């Protein structure tokens, strides 16, 4: 007779703590998602309703007009910025992951003099704040007359010491020495072994470094801000910043800034939703020592 009572009591408190746990998580998710939902609804509005109206209604729905404004303003310079962002982030991240993976693999698989000292230098690079570096890079670019060119933004993003650190961990985890041994016995040269075996096995690491660097470059603001003055070379972030600065005087820019922002974040959100497995793997690899 007593047994139902005994089991019910813990059951009840379990239900309570279950709702408490999930309640907190729902609140936190609401906090992170709310501004994004706002961005989506705001992007559909015309200037008047954006500034005055109720944001969470479809009053003043004018998405088509906002999109066509984006396309036509200064001959569609927005999409030129979009292309530039893709170029900086795509080429930059691709080059960066190749270079990082090669170096990380070499640090993992080969023994040579001064290896750990050299690796310590790489780790020092991890700790250098990138904004503290951007200004010196600018001053150097002024000196070498490379300021305000594609190269001034592209070359610095090819280097990411953290990518080398991650790659070394991935190489140790994913590329077994036996596989390389077998390739050597088959007479493959060291570089051939790296190219056709090492690189293939370390692919998860490659994708992770690529994703990280792509996001970092896509989101980068300080470096393009100091380097570029030609509007045709701007990435999205700098272009939107420019429009936003105009919006104080000309409110017509508001819908363009908001709709432009929505289009700018969409590819990254899609990438993160579809590539969940990879970024999670990368975050973990960095944190587990």
């Amino acid at each position, binding site marked *: 007779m007593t047994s139902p009572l005994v089991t019910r009591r813990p059951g009840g408190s379990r239900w309570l703590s279950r709702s408490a746990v999930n309640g907190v998580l729902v609140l*936190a*998710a609401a906090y992170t998602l709310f501004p*994004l939902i706002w961005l989506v609804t705001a992007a559909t509005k015309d200037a008047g309703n954006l500034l005055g109206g109720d944001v969470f209604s479809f009053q003043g729905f004018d998405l088509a007009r906002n999109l066509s404004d984006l396309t036509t303003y200064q001959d569609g310079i927005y999409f030129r910025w979009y292309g530039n962002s893709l170029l900086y982030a795509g080429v930059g991240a691709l080059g960066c992951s190749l270079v990082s993976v090669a170096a990380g693999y070499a640090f993992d698989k080969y023994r040579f003099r001064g290896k750990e000292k050299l690796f310590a230098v790489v780790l020092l690079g991890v700790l250098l704040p990138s904004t503290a570096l951007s200004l*010196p890079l600018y001053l150097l670019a002024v000196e070498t007359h490379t300021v305000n060119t594609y190269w001034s933004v592209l070359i610095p993003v090819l280097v990411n010491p953290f990518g080398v650190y991650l790659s070394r961990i991935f190489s140790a985890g994913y590329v077994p*020495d036996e596989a390389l041994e077998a390739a050597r016995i088959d007479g493959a040269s060291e570089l051939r072994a790296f190219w056709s075996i090492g690189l293939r096995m370390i692919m998860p690491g490659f994708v992770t470094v690529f994703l990280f660097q792509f996001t970092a470059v896509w989101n980068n603001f300080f470096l393009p801000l100091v380097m570029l003055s030609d509007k045709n070379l701007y990435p999205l972030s700098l272009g*939107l910043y420019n429009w936003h600065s105009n919006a104080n005087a000309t409110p017509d820019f508001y819908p363009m800034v*908001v709709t432009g922002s929505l289009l700018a974040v969409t590819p990254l959100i899609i990438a993160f939703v579809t590539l969940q497995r990879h970024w*999670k793997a990368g975050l973990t*690899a960095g944190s*587990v020592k």
Partner: protein
Amino acid sequence: MSTEATRETPPATTPAPAPAAGPTARTTARGPKRPGSATRTGLAATVLLTPFFALFTVAMVIPVGYALWLSLFTEKASGLGFDGPRTVFHGLGNYTEALGDPAFRDGFQVLLGYCAFYIPLMVGGALILSLLLDTALARARRFFQLALFLPHAIPGLIAALIWIYLYTPGLSPVINAMDAGGFGFDFLSTDGILPSVVNIALWEWLGYNVVIFYASLQAVDRSLLEAATVDGAGQWRLAFSIKIPLIRSSLALVLLFTVIGSLQLFTEPLILSRSGASVPSTWTPNMYAYSAAFQRNDYGLAAAASVLIALAAAALSFGVTRFSNRKEARAA
């Protein structure tokens, strides 16, 4: 950091139990191998390392060196001002000027206040959320991880733009609701600016750190937790006595990156300052360096400020790693 970081360990998401795999991976990597010949592998290592170190030199070593060099010079208007400014050696003059400038020192003060808010909120918040996700009670874990992480996909500039709209009275549903509820707060005032920036940074990075913590919590040996539960440990006890001590290295890493990130504070306050919020142009050390270069055209001073920021970052990260290593050694 260096001794810890160089240990080869496979990523924890590999199916193999990560903590146990540590020592094994180490022996295979360091153990006897049969490299073709020393010169052959030496050549391969050189070829594979050269691209990185060449770029590293061009984009990191030389700029740092150049900044150090520049920071020792200053421009002086010559006698009558006819033949333009001359560059003259200034010794540590730029450093004393920066350190002596109340605006620069205030910047560090602001950062200190920022960290005092931001770091406990961020690390504590991320830890609590990940522990909640790790309990058996949590539902829809994948959804929550993704929902919390998504703001990280938003560029800092756009995050700041979104939040500016959400801070603006009349425009923002949040502010309107707060005013209606009787606890209005001016996010764009001098007093409001620190909480405003903390909130934007928190929004951007919270989920990122939750994922890091949650992933390392997943690597905690489940049998250990079961044993503790059998011994009568509750959820709190499990969290504080077992889980948190076991993810110490992740905690240290998150703390390190949070500290380095805080020192870089620039984009968000810059945007706020351009949107009518009351942010001075030298609010953070980075903003000071930026305005020295682009508003005053004083490159020597800008370089000196950048070097000082980098030094502060190095000192802080050294402190954080020392602190966490010592704690680890004591716990071991």
